[in-house]
């Protein structure tokens, strides 16, 4: 492995790290659930990488994500907006409107022809429209998060979840389950409720096609399907949507001016 730069994305749910070579390809990556002792966790990531490579001396690391300021091993901290845009643009080769649905927040980022960020919007101070919305309600319905999308897509009908608030949606779901409504149509309605919030955010920055997706939540197939339904556009995903923040950080690390 000829590692030349590293990027780490400390999100609210998971920590992602990638290493890239001079051709800007991902040659190593690792993902774990986030540990509140971020610095220790980053050390363990670096140790894992050291086991597989010779030395990391002099290889720059850039941190991004909500916990970026806790990564003292990083030479620089950059926001997720810049990193996701950078990563996705490098992988897909074009601009557009990037939607990143993360565990704690969602973002719509308009990326220009040269990969620059032209505009962005983030969800407001509320868990609606984020991965946490699905996570909470999935737990309530006892459906593993990894199977949520498939279960939702197997639904033959759909019910409307009227509450956008995560907490109220939970009570609404309990009431539906108590009235004998099946899990599948509820789940599909739940995805639609989340996506409607996301689409409103996309509309607020003005949709510049094509629509691009990144973030851990888009691994869920129902998210992709419902977003295409709602926005009436085909969506494009990079190969590793969940790693795009860390990948973008590594790309920025690669281009850091040498001191």
């Amino acid at each position, binding site marked *: 492995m000829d590692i030349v730069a590293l990027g780490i994305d400390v999100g609210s749910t998971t920590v992602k790290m990638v290493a890239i070579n001079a051709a800007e390809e991902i040659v190593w990556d690792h993902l774990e659930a986030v540990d509140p002792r971020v610095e220790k966790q980053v050390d363990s990531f670096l140790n894992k990488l050291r086991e597989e490579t010779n030395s990391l001396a002099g290889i720059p690391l850039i941190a991004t994500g*909500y916990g970026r300021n806790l990564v003292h091993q990083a030479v620089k901290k950059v*926001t997720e907006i810049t990193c996701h845009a950078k990563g996705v643009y490098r992988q897909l080769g074009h601009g557009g409107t990037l939607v990143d649905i993360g565990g704690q*927040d969602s973002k719509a980022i308009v990326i220009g022809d040269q990969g*620059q*960020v*032209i*505009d*962005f919007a*983030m969800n407001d*101070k509320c868990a609606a429209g984020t991965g946490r919305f699905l996570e909470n309600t999935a737990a309530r319905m006892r459906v593993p998060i990894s199977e949520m999308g498939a279960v939702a897509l197997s639904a033959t009908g759909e019910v409307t979840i009227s509450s956008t608030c995560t907490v109220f949606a939970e009570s609404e779901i309990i009431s539906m389950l108590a009235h004998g409504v099946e899990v599948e149509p509820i789940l599909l309605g739940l995805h639609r409720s989340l996506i409607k919030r996301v689409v409103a955010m996309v509309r607020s920055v003005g949709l510049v096609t094509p629509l691009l997706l990144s973030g851990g939540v888009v691994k869920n197939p129902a998210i992709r399907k419902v977003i295409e339904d709602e926005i009436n556009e085909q969506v494009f995903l990079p190969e590793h949507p969940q790693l795009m923040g860390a990948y973008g950080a590594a790309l920025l690390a690669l281009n850091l001016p040498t001191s």
Partner: protein
Amino acid sequence: MGINDSLKYYWNVKVVGQPFLQWQRWQAERHPKIPSRWRTDILSPPLRIGARTKELISRHYLEGRYANGHRPVAWVTSGGPVEILQALGFYVLYPENHGAVCGVRRVVVDISTEAENAGYSTDICSYARTDIGSVLSGKTPVGRLPKPDLLLACTNICQTVLHWYRVLAKHFNVPLILIDTPFVYTEASDHALEYVKKQLENSIPVAEQVAGHTLDYRRLQEIIQLSKNAAELWLEIIGRGRHHPAPMSVFDQFIHMAPIVEMRGKQETVDFYAALLKELDENISKGIGAVRNERKRLLWDNLPIWYRLRYLAENLGEHGICVVASTYTNAWGELAPLMNKEKPLESMAKTYTYPILNQGTKYKLDTMKRMVEKFQLDGVILHSDRSCKPYSIGQIDQRNLLIQEYGIPALLLEADHDDPRAYAEEQVASRLASFVEMLES
């Protein structure tokens, strides 16, 4: 008015309080101190005028503390036509300014909870909640607020004041003067201005009755002239932001704007702003900017976030960003040319009908565009203020138009001017950092 109260006023305000505040100011001017946690690596030392600002504001509230029984007291809205009351010798209190002081001192949650416990919804403006909470509990960081003998609400800033002041009128059982200013879509019609003028005329006998004497029109003219002079100086002061680096950031303006809001019509306010202008001109000639390494310049739209002024100044200053101008501080100067002491009531009717919040959202958009050009700015931060609906409505469209029509980067920042419970620092920091990176790319 009682002799005991007057003696108490003279002793506490004139004999003890004012000389002490003056001495405190002299001390601060002679030995200027930089606050211990001031980031001198990012920001220039605070303006010297700060000592005087502190003296003026402290004296204002000290006078208020002992005003009852000595002078008539009026509570007014920030956009209220105050000159008539000043000419009649009223002590004038601005609950909104008091709310701002509570915000800066971070006591809003404690005080507004008193109003919320009495049934006032958290959806009501945090200034109103803070004021009502203060009235109900007596809590205030300024010692004691005087009880009003008269209330004056003008709808040129919002409709909340209409209900807020009715609550106050019922609570204190005092007369309420309501000045209703018709909304200006493009231009105020003659009959609209005549309607406002008539209301001003009708307010005079009510205020005279409370004051116990008649209005001296020559005094009113003098006060209008003083208001105009102070507002013109304020306009010049904020106009100095055209210089690179800007000698004053909006975070300084937010603090030093207190006299133009609550002490209009006074010679000392005119003197204060003349001194501030002089200090800025000195700093300009020495090349001293508010932000040490000014690289980018921004516009602020809407009210300040009172409880996080320093944080925002430092957070942005760290990246060499100075927020140079704001539509909010501009609002207190832009109407100065309309005042005319030769036509006191007519010109007051016009001045108080045309505030930015009483005009269409297109006017605000045009103002922002004009200010971006005038001050050579790189972007706009629009504070979406949960409490101030009239200021925040239309901001999403204004933001999009700034970006799409004029190519000006713009950020919407959600918060509340007074209530920190509607503010999420991590999210604000994240948005600001992303915006800064976007500006720098």
